[in-house]
């Protein structure tokens, strides 16, 4: 038996494409060095590939990824020789389960927004981000130095695309083979 991975490379790439940034950003809340965060998250993917992990659904996979990232961050900080004030408060933050959930919630909101927005052309991305921040059309026009009418048109087109993407998700609710 040569193949003991449950996940194919394609599967793993899908998971990577979906969650990589979110996990790195989550780790970055505790570890200041971005490279260190990336390294740590990459190891999780390598582990995912290597081990015979199986997940009954996407929710358990997602939960596993965030929890593992949290644990790894915890280990890094615990093992850091320097016990400064910052490390102590970070450990405290990492130990807080409610905070963990809140941070995951934030990261998941960002992740899904990012995935939806990144499909838009660049100009629309800029407009939609400013609009989501709460800026008025006139402020957006000024900030991006474009005509108010252009803002209005591109904004309504962008919202339409985003709405479709999020409405579409419901359909996909799920459909699985049962064994």
């Amino acid at each position, binding site marked *: 038996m040569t193949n003991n991975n449950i996940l194919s490379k394609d599967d793993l790439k899908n998971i990577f494409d979906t969650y990589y940034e979110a996990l790195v*950003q989550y780790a970055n809340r505790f570890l200041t060095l971005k490279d260190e965060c990336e390294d740590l998250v990459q190891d999780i993917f390598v582990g995912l590939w290597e081990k015979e992990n199986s997940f009954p659904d996407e929710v358990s996979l997602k939960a596993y990824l965030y929890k593992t990232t949290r644990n790894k961050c915890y280990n890094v900080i615990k093992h850091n020789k320097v016990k400064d004030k910052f490390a102590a408060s970070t450990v405290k933050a990492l130990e807080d389960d409610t905070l963990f959930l809140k941070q995951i*919630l934030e990261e998941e909101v960002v992740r899904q*927004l990012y995935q939806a927005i990144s499909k838009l052309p660049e100009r629309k991305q800029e407009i939609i981000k400013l609009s989501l921040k709460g800026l008025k059309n006139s402020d957006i026009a000024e900030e991006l130095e474009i005509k108010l009418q252009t803002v209005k048109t591109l904004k309504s087109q962008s919202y339409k695309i985003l709405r479709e993407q999020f409405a579409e998700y419901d359909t996909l609710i799920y459909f699985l083979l049962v064994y």
Partner: protein
Amino acid sequence: MKDVFHISRLIIKEKLKVLTDLEKTDLERLNHKLPFSDNVKIEDLVDKVSSYSTINKDRAWEAIEAKFGKVQNKPKRVVKLFNRPWHKYAAAAVFVGLLATAYFFKDNLLNSRTNHVETPSIVDTNLIEPGTDKATLTLANGEQVPLEKGTAFQTSNANSNGEQIVYAAGNRKTKELTYNYLTIPRGGQFHIVLSDGTEVWLNSESQLKYPVSFIDGETRQVELVYGEAYFDVTPSSENNGSKFIVLNKSQEVEVLGTEFNIKAYRDETNIYTTLVEGKVIVANQQGVTRNLTPNYQSVLSMETAEFKITTVDVNSETSWRRGVFSFKGKPLKDVMKVISRWYDVDVVFANKELESIKFKGNLNKDRSIERILSLMLSDKLKSYEIKDKTIILK
């Protein structure tokens, strides 16, 4: 954690103003359950979206591949299985692996649609549409009136906007019953409010016979001639004690004000009665009766005329009324029966073995047939073909 993932989506949908009523309730419930969610505001998170794009993903993926390469090249531990036919284990392990892959993959397909299955050949799909609100109303004089979205219709005691028909509380002093029929074609559904306020949701390929108004003090009686209907019956206490009976050629259901679902299709050999709320008594032609309590379903076999009572997931059994088909481990044959009624299509199984593969899941009823079929593809159901109004599963 599941709640966190769920509410994350709802928060975005709220911002985009695409929450359904059901989701609004869900969001309120979850906001309450996860108080910290109130402080999660999209306005504050937009800047983080931008920081996602600063990550070099190609480089990261290369790094993962390189790291994995190193791990793989390490000498493997040899595990010996003593006194056991090793190939059995190997085969079992491979099999488990395959199952898990298929299972996982199917789910993951939801987010990124990589295809490991044949591309389905679609000849002409323009003909197949999801069902809509429509019905044929047959009046007491035999006149037939098509009811459809966008066309209003009115009689002296009923009013339809094309999506539902409402009978006026009307004349309780009626001595003689006059009957109307509501017939729902394949690809249709309809909602009706009877003169006593009882509401009935009718699924595709169903027919209901009911009096235009009920006689005061007498048993209220309607007939589900065939098909599927969800009843929300007004209590006897509001109707001078009159009980409510739903007839069918093989079964009678007596109710005292309650919600339940009856499925009695002509091409099926069982009648399913599912109680959501209250209490009903089901009876077969021989007069054998069974009491049903909520969350129980009676299955009457038309062959043996025997009842079987089981617990069921009521939400899943009655979700069709709310625009969702829900299947909990149903064989493909049954799944396709439901689909064929709603999309008004014929389904052919190129391979009989496909009929028994089981599915679980929820499907939105307003989706295109291709969308639904593509979700079902797997290493078992490899492809499908659509020819006019026939779907061939391969």
